[in-house]
């Protein structure tokens, strides 16, 4: 536990001074404040911000995360040459990356809501949007970590990270849309719900939308999602799915880190 705490606090200190991460937080601040500035109400700002969060958070977590891990390799070797077990060291390294990323998002996107008194957005919608951004930071930094500890070639690793981002944010939805068009005569709601859970970006979108009552805009399918996720059981299922999405990349990376040669 002591090793984890030491490595996490070093990671926080390191990345809190990173110009890239400060720029990331500032970017979200300017965007959210700008949306309020141009007359958006709280729920409108949440909706607009949601679309940006779902694209930008995975992109930054994947690319920044992979580059950060590649740049840390030699220092990790130095740490591993000390009397330290690999597992707590890995946990510290991952949390030392994911926490600053999540914190930069939460501060950057959250402060404008504080300054504008929430702008009329409900607490649950704001909390869900913040949680979605934080959880996506953890999930995609975990995937970035797995990529970087699995692929030795930095260029290939960053390319793979971009590929994962493209697949999760664009291609997956395209495939779902194509499947919906092709099998439109069949009852697709349940398979679609399952498909949404298999992609953390879609899952986060649905969870936030279910708090905004915007699912009414999505027709029958949206109503089904709202029905499924709006109940206590549905919310628990969505929460469990997002937690699983946090856990799987972490466990895969930890396993890889514990077994690999440096």
């Amino acid at each position: 536990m002591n090793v984890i705490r030491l490595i996490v606090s070093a990671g926080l200190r390191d990345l809190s001074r990173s110009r890239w991460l400060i720029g990331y937080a500032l970017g979200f601040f300017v965007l959210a404040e700008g949306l309020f500035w141009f007359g958006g109400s709280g729920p409108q700002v949440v909706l607009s911000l949601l679309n940006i969060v779902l694209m930008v958070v995975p992109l930054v977590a994947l690319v920044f995360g992979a580059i950060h891990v590649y740049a840390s390799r030699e220092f990790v070797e130095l740490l591993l040459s000390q009397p330290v077990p690999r597992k707590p060291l890995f946990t510290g390294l991952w949390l030392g990356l994911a926490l600053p990323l999540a914190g930069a998002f939460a501060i950057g996107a959250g402060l404008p809501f504080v300054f504008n008194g929430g702008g009329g957005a409900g607490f649950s919608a704001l909390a869900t949007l913040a949680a979605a951004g934080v959880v996506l930071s953890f999930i995609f930094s975990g995937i970035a970590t797995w990529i970087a500890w699995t692929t030795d070639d930095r260029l290939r690793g960053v390319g793979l990270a971009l590929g994962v981002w493209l697949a999760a944010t664009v291609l997956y939805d395209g495939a779902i849309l194509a499947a919906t068009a092709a099998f439109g005569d069949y009852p697709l709601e349940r398979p679609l719900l399952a498909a949404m859970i298999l992609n953390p970006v879609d899952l986060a979108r649905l969870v936030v939308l279910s708090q905004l009552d915007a699912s009414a805009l999505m027709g029958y399918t949206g109503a089904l999602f709202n029905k499924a996720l709006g109940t206590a059981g549905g919310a628990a299922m969505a929460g469990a799915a997002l937690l699983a999405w946090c856990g799987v990349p972490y466990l895969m990376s930890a396993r890889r880190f514990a077994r690999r040669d440096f």
Partner: protein
Amino acid sequence: MIRVEGLRKRYGSHDALRGVTLEFRTGAVTALVGPNASGKTTLIKSLLGLVRPDAGAIFVKDTPVDSGGDYRRAIGYMPQLARFPENLTVADVIALVASVRSGERSDAVRDDELIEAFHLVREMDRLVRTLSGGTRQKVSAAIAFLFSPEILILDEPTAGLDPLAAAILKDKIRSVRAEGRTVLITSHVSAELEGLADDVAFLCDGEIGFTGTFDSLLHQVGERRFEGAIASLFRSKGRVA
């Protein structure tokens, strides 16, 4: 102090180490030399537990290295590339490694001699990203010696150092040898190993080509200078030195 028995390591179709057996004498400076891709770094990383060999065993102070990481408490390591988190200060980096190494112990003995000799005290509050390559190398050397380890593993320690800093580091290596500590050093600059190394281990294509004292190497190949002796070993293995 360090015993290596039949060490084998293969990366894909490439045999990095082919049954390496050797011993590093306690209280001696051993130069680990060999051409590029001869297996030196793989051997060093195996000693540190960073690389897991396919076969063979390594014993550090009679403890097998695969029995856990605690044996590394006896080792100070200076890697070839000195890279630290860019936004930490020098003081942060040193404190982190010290804390990770000693845990909650506050009574750990610290050897600050290199920190003072390299004038790193005035660099303590500087961010790593603002340091030159040479200063990073000095920080790396200072960390390796900081905990007064019984064994020092130095991978190309003088690469990137100015002549004065290199001389300070070599003096430090001599002084720890005089204290009876064991030093394993790799370098491509043969001249700087002369007068520093007691023993030589020559590695080529993952196999030991020579192991013995510095004097016995000169005698065996009929050379008077270390550089010439190493060149002879290279030629004997079909390598152009």
